[in-house]
């Protein structure tokens, strides 16, 4: 609980022993949340949106996701594994879904429940929301928590376009708790553990954007659980317990890029991958594109199968899920459909619980709360930027010359951290000039600055 004072609680961590300060993560961060200090990467917690891009690109495996201790599950009599279908997609089709679930039980879980079990109810909630808000032209799905946070800090004017409903994960956790309690379980005895494919989902559980409390007791990294299950499967692939699962193809495909959008009748768009998301939001904000309808957005390429904790190749995982979706559809036809309607009182409770009252914009660009002061800083920043070499070498420990200019006006860096402006010897000045030419002209722009 030590990070209460910051806006977002993060799960991404840097292993200082492995970090070489190579600048790769810093340069890939979409919100400029990383700097190099003392030879190591450090995060600015108020800028990070948990997209996990830094962890994906780190060549030294120095960035990791802090997970809850697996032993936590022992604290509960009812140990529910809330598993997204992305997890099933990690395994070869030759393993039955029941076999995978049997392994989870061997590891200590008493109940297995799929996050996407409730997508049909989720679609109903979405449709109702869109009907209730005719004034909004473009609805942005709130499914990917990294997208929601990215919009908060980089595209504040689009905050009102986000569908203010919590995720299928929150819905599923409440439904399974209700079911177990209906069977006689005490609430305190139920522990719900979510298997996450990414850093953003952990952060969303630990500090939900809604500010409302979550029903999830702990979060387990998908790669950790994958290794354990794969080992068990390998040793005894035919040890299968009878476990009922009622996933539909709609649920299986939901975490994939396009899986969510395609469930809606009206106009819809499926945008996946960090650069595509940034580009789309930028254009949407300028009204340079008109996108009436629902926009599904996933920070990871191909959707959640592209998550940083998904072990196997995203395209292979996608194919596997598509295979299982066809299989489940065939099974579904031979089986009595589960009743979809919740009892009215529970449905009312769910509708209240799923609502996010407000999503606050938190622009990370704003230089100062006072307009006049911000104006002065912005003018100075432009001047400094012109004086810097513009080669974005990152030797100053910031991602770009523009970022250094911003750090300087914010008082977090000095002009002389630029090695072009302040070479440590005549020889290095000569070397810089040989390679880059006359990039810096010491003159009026530089001398006013510290």
């Amino acid at each position, binding site marked *: 609980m030590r990070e209460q004072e910051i806006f977002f609680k993060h799960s991404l961590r840097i292993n200082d022993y492995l970090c070489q300060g190579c600048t790769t993560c810093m340069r890939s961060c979409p919100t400029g949340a990383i700097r190099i200090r003392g030879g190591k990467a450090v995060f600015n917690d108020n800028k990070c949106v948990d997209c996990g891009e830094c962890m994906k690109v780190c060549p030294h495996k120095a960035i990791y996701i802090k997970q809850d201790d697996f032993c936590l599950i022992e604290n509960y009599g009812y140990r529910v594994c809330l598993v997204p279908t992305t997890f099933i997609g990690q395994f070869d089709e030759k393993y039955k879904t029941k076999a995978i679930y049997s392994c989870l039980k061997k590891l200590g879980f008493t109940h297995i429940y799929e996050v996407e079990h409730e997508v049909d109810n989720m679609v109903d909630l979405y449709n109702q929301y869109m009907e209730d808000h005719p004034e909004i032209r473009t609805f942005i799905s709130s499914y990917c928590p990294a997208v929601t946070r990215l919009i908060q800090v980089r595209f*504040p*004017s689009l*905050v009102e376009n986000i569908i203010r409903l919590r995720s299928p994960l929150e819905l599923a956790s409440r439904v399974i708790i209700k079911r177990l309690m209906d069977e006689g379980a005490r609430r305190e005895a139920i522990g719900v553990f979510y298997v996450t494919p990414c850093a953003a989902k952990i952060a969303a559980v630990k500090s939900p954007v809604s500010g409302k409390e979550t029903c999830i007791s702990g979060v387990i990294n998908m790669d950790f659980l994958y290794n354990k299950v794969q080992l068990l499967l390998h040793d005894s692939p035919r040890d299968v317990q009878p476990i009922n699962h009622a996933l539909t193809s709609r649920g299986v495909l939901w975490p994939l890029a396009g899986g969510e959008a395609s469930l809606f009748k009206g106009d819809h768009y499926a945008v996946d991958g960090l650069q595509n998301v940034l580009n789309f939001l*930028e*254009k949407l*904000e*300028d*009204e*340079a594109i008109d996108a009436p309808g629902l926009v599904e957005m996933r920070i990871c390429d191909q959707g959640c199968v592209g998550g940083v904790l998904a072990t196997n190749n995203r395209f292979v995982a996608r194919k596997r899920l598509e295979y299982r979706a066809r299989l489940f559809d065939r099974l579904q036809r031979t089986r009595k459909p589960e009743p979809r309607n919740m009892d009215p009182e529970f449905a009312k409770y769910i509708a209240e619980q799923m609502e996010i009252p407000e999503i606050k*914009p938190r*622009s990370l*660009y*704003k*230089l*100062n*709360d006072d*307009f*006049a002061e*911000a*104006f002065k*800083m*912005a*003018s100075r*920043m*432009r001047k400094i930027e012109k004086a810097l070499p513009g080669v974005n070498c990152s030797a100053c420990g910031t991602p770009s010359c523009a970022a250094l200019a911003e750090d300087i006006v914010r008082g977090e860096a000095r002009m002389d951290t630029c090695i072009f402006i302040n070479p440590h010897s005549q020889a290095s000045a000569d070397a810089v000039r040989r390679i880059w030419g006359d990039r810096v002209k010491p003159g009026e722009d530089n001398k006013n600055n510290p």
Partner: protein
Amino acid sequence: MHYTFTIERGNFTDAGQASSSVKRTLKQLGVDPANIKRTVVALFEAEINAIAHAYGGTIDVDIDEGKIVMVVADQGPGIPNLDLAMQEGWSTASAKVREMGYGAGMGLPNIKKNTDDLKIDTEVGVGTTVTMTVYLV
């Protein structure tokens, strides 16, 4: 703070650079998102107008402590009937421009809607200068 951009006839691909960089500065200044949106939408519309109709031009943006003034000046055919052009849905855009999704006749009306002050100087055969002002605080 002053910004200058150039406009090239028919180059829809590069449209939006002016609005993007203005947007960034306004975000740094902590301008209210609704005002940022108005500014950026107006500027983008004016730029598209010049790209679609004129033979090239320039965008000059000045931001001071209370307002932003955007001047889009083109060397173009000029607007023969300004009253008509200000009507929603009225357009002289070519079929080619319409094919690209522009030319719905909403450009100038949309600019008027989004700015606090709009001045249009136009002369047929010479060009059009659109001066847009948005009060930021």
